[in-house]
């Protein structure tokens, strides 16, 4: 006790976090790089060092480019509407509202539902023959859409799950930031006769810029790693993980899963993981610069 206690116990207290993160977070990520440089079978282990051969094979693999294209398309289709809608929703929630708690809880509800359950429900909603989306479209005279067979349709359906699940969450984050904007800024602007629309763009949005940046980065990281929604969107295809017969909605993480855990090619799968990691860094950086530039113009 005494001297020893004050000096070392704090390190003991924070040790569990660093031990768990080190073993189950950092080590696997770094080891992935090592595995990616080998011909490595998941069960048998390393079959020898091959240098960058996995990466070279990756760059001429049409399935990789297809998965990359799908990932980017799904990422854009889900992130952009989600964040724009969240911004509008937050602005609504920021007004004087009756029953504030109910509205806030209501918009957050989708976020606590498991992705697996959401994916199954949406798989039904977007069914070709019995889905309610086609049913409603039919009422307006639109022919049924085969939501799984067509690339653009499947991307729309999958994005709608992501948007449904995350819009409310982001709205609450924006709302929190909006509420710390000084009230007198609004009052003087309104006194000067600015419209509500103008106030929103000239005061609210620039004031919460750091928060917008934060949500863009977080949803970038999430969007690039999309897996469960597309994986379960095709109920029958869950076992293969190819994202439809022609891989029309296979994402990079799905391809990583297919290569690593269905075809047991751990080396190739690890190469996908590292390319994806680099891409996430790149897109996050790009977003960071873009968002900062756009937001500072406002």
């Amino acid at each position, binding site marked *: 006790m005494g001297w020893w206690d004050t000096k070392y116990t704090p390190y003991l207290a924070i040790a569990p976090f660093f031990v768990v993160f080190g073993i189950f977070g950092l080590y696997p990520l770094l080891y992935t790089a090592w595995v990616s440089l080998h011909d490595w079978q998941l069960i048998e282990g390393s079959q020898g060092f091959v240098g960058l051969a996995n990466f070279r094979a990756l760059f001429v693999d049409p399935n990789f480019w297809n998965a990359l294209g799908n990932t980017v398309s799904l990422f854009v289709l889900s992130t952009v509407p989600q964040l724009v809608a969240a911004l509008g929703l937050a602005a609504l929630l920021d007004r004087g*509202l009756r029953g504030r708690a109910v509205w806030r809880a209501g918009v957050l509800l989708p976020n606590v539902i498991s992705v697996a359950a959401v994916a199954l429900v949406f798989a039904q909603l977007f069914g070709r023959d*019995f889905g309610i989306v086609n049913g409603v479209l039919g009422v307006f005279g639109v022919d049924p859409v085969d939501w799984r067979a067509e690339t653009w349709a499947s991307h729309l359906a999958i994005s709608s799950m992501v948007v449904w699940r995350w819009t409310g969450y982001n709205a*609450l984050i924006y709302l929190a930031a909006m509420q710390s904007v000084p009230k007198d800024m609004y009052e003087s602007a309104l006194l000067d006769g600015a419209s509500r629309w103008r106030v929103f763009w000239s005061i609210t949005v620039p004031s919460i810029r750091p928060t917008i940046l934060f949500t863009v980065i977080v949803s970038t990281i999430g969007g690039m790693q999309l897996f469960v929604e597309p994986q379960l969107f095709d109920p029958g295809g869950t076992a293969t993980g190819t994202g439809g017969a022609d891989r029309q909605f296979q994402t990079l993480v799905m391809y990583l899963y297919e290569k690593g855990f269905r075809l047991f090619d751990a080396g190739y799968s690890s190469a996908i993981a590292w390319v994806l990691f680099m891409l996430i860094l790149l897109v996050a950086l790009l977003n960071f610069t873009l968002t900062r530039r756009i937001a500072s113009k406002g």
Partner: protein
Amino acid sequence: MASRVGKAGPVAYAVLVVVLVASIFPLYYSFLIASKDNSALGDAVPSLVPGGNLFENLGRVFDTVDFWLAMQNSLVVAGTVAVGNVVLGTLAGFAFARLRFRGGNSLFLVVVGTSMVPTQLGVIPLYMLMSDLDWYGTLQAVIVPALIGAFSVFWMRQACEESVPFELVEAARVDGCSVLRTFWHVALPAVRPQAAVMGMFTFMTAWNDFFWPLIVLDPNDSPTVQVALSTLASGYYTDYSLMLSGASLAVLPVVGIFLLLARQIVGGIMQGAVKG
């Protein structure tokens, strides 16, 4: 807080009602299909009144997969993860908030920084690690990596800064309490409300997890509820009443917790956003 940017008009309420309905509808729809016979699904726009087949469909879920075992496994996983995060997260959070030690601030920045590391990408070595440990197919393979996380440390540090005054810690120390006793008898009781919310939150997250349990658990042997759901979905033909009965069962505990704690969970997310 009443009128910030002006009171909401009828249009604002109308939009919010639409958003609320859109939030709830898929859940209601899931329950709706769960209560119907598969043959009732042929209607172009199905009736929004529940059918009478709910219990029959639920029974089929338990016949198709060992859903009781899956529920039990999920309960063990989510419960242990929640307790682990509360105890270990509070311990670390208390150290960062109320103990002075060399490198404390930079180590805390490291903790926050780790939340940016995409752990999903390390699944191949993680899987190999679990095989080496002989943990494949066991619940500890899902539990141990989730026992503590950056979020819990961050959250509980904030809780300690709010609810554990320096004076209280010093008084305990003067009375001869060791650091660990001070934590147990002074800090932990003071942050009980925040710890409860965080525990529920980590419970929900662990209950909902899918990707890692799918990889490391044997889907035919001892999966969690979420993995069992994917088994329900991968039959020869898509049996929607069966699938959505399972989905309804799987979301029930989480929706229950959410309804109980909605106010605190919403408050927590908004608070974390401002200070983060």
